[in-house]
């Protein structure tokens, strides 16, 4: 029904009042179309709900956690307790409640992933936008520098930097962000290269807007949908990276807990206390998978070439 309304063309005849258009609520903004498509993708919605639940649980960790995640008492009686109603995820080698630790660990893992993504996306967007908009030798210089940068294996670079800088969490976020911006930069550059040929950019020049405003207000917003897709995917990847670094002992150090260093602690006790590595591992896998699924869902929902009918 809505389609018919939206498709009906307006007619303006000279000398006659222009026909009234259909009511505004009959219209679909690009955003509402994307929303519809996303919502019709059950898996992506489930993944988004999962992320939301995890985020809320992480935020409310002090309220939700049944025990103090760092309290050590009667170690000999409480350590390596298997999952039970008292300790849903069991206890670790110091008798600390694993569920409480996993909740607090979620805060760090999610925060590191999201913040590092923001660093990467900001740097990448700026870099790519400048290269794509300036074009010519500036573009060439920036993109060759980027090629040189990506020639270093990213993971070894992170390992090296994390080792050199005795990483606290802030530094770790910066290191991860500053080694992950290149894909965003490439993506933004290619979007901007095609967008800047569009007539509305010429029109923006013709109304006398300065370059930085053309980039900021007219080019970047038009490129954002594809960045959103890759940024979501990136969060999953970065959470995984943080876990690997912490597992290797150069990420976030105890006593600050993350899923990565919980898994690492569990590895040592894998045969006597499988739950120590199992639960944070499952949470990590679910989280990364959820971000990937949401990213897929966004990609399909924001693709202007996808057929609307399939989803509505």
């Amino acid at each position: 029904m809505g389609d018919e309304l939206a498709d009906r063309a307006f007619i303006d005849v000279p000398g006659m009042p222009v026909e009234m258009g259909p009511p505004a609520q009959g219209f679909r903004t690009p955003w509402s179309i994307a929303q519809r498509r996303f919502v019709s993708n059950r898996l992506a919605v489930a993944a988004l709900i999962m992320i939301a639940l995890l985020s809320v649980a992480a935020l409310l960790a002090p309220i939700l956690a049944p025990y103090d995640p760092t309290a050590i008492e009667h170690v000999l009686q409480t350590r390596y307790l298997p999952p039970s109603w008292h300790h849903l995820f069991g206890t670790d080698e110091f008798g600390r409640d694993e569920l409480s630790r996993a909740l607090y660990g979620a805060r760090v893992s999610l925060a590191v992933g999201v913040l590092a993504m923001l660093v990467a996306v900001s740097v990448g967007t700026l870099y790519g936008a400048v290269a794509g908009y300036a074009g010519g030798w500036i573009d060439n210089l920036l993109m060759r520098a980027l090629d040189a940068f990506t020639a270093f294996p990213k993971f070894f670079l992170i390992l090296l930097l994390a080792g050199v800088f005795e990483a606290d969490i802030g530094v770790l976020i910066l290191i991860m962000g500053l080694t992950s911006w290149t894909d965003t930069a490439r993506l933004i550059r290619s979007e901007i290269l095609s967008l800047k040929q569009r007539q509305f950019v010429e029109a923006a020049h013709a109304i006398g807007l300065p370059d930085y405003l053309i980039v900021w207000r007219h080019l970047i917003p038009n490129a954002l949908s594809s960045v959103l897709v890759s940024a979501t995917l990136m969060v999953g990847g970065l959470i995984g990276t943080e876990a690997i670094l912490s597992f290797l002992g150069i990420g976030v150090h105890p006593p600050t807990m993350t899923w990565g260093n919980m898994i690492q602690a569990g590895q040592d006790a894998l045969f006597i206390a499988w739950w120590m590595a199992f639960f944070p591992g499952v949470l990590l896998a679910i989280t990364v998978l959820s971000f990937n699924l949401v990213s897929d869902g966004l990609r399909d929902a924001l693709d202007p070439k996808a057929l609307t009918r399939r989803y509505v």
Partner: protein
Amino acid sequence: MLLSVRNLTSYFFLDEGVLKAVDGVSFDIQENETVALVGESGCGKTIVALSLINLIPAPGRIIAGQVLLSGEDVVTTPKDRLRQIRGGEIGFVFQEPGSSLNPVYTVGHQIAEVLQTHRGLTRKEADKEAVRLLGATGIPDPEKRAKSYPFQLSGGMRQRAAIAMAISTRPKLLIADEPTTALDVTVQAGILDLLEELQQQYGMAILIISHDLGVVAQIAQRVLVMYAGKLIESAHVDALFSSPKHPYAQGLLDSVRLRADRNAPLRGIPGSVPDLLRLPGGCTFHPRCSVSDLSCRTQFPPMLPLAGDRSCACYRVHQ
């Protein structure tokens, strides 16, 4: 004199060679005058228009000439001042109203942006003024339309919105590059009426670029005819339509049924527009011209005045 263009020369430096899109074009526009620039597709009309606001896309460049806007040379003026001229003193309406509006912003927002840039209005004032301007261009229910995205409007309404944006700063000159070409015939007439109405209301000059002689006949006072990067005739609209002098202008008019004799056969111009990279020597029109002789092959004829405030670049006319 509002605008005085002298020997404007804009070339494109391509791998294949130098493309002489605009080659030594001179003309004037008076205050409140409507001038039409006509010619076939690819003859350089749009590049003339873009040169007037010094906005030629790379690898193109203005390599010589002056564009004097109230005595100030747009070609050499510093970039900051140029930005004030663009959209401030010279408004620009593009051919495709759909693609000249940014798809991610509402129409009202985009008009407000111009007002904030050039008239220093606050966001609130600008939003209000945008609604008023949309109303002034004949869009019904402007308050609702201001909140619409470009794709939610019909082609005619988009062009009205684009015109609202162009006139929002009360420019002295409005350049309209094929403003009706992408629109239905019925909508075209409405847009032309609107331009005339706004011209009277705001007192601005209009340079309309078109290949549609019907549009030109309706709106223009003076017509400039362009062929392969050069002006070849300039005349009052009635004079041109009743007695075109240049053989190309004659051919152009013979190829449409505008003149009194509706039964006269339509005739095309033989041949096609020359490749701007490989222009014929002498008068660039001579290979297609029915009256050309040897003298036409030596050098491009100068624009020389004729009786009745018109001029023409053709050896045979001046003989």
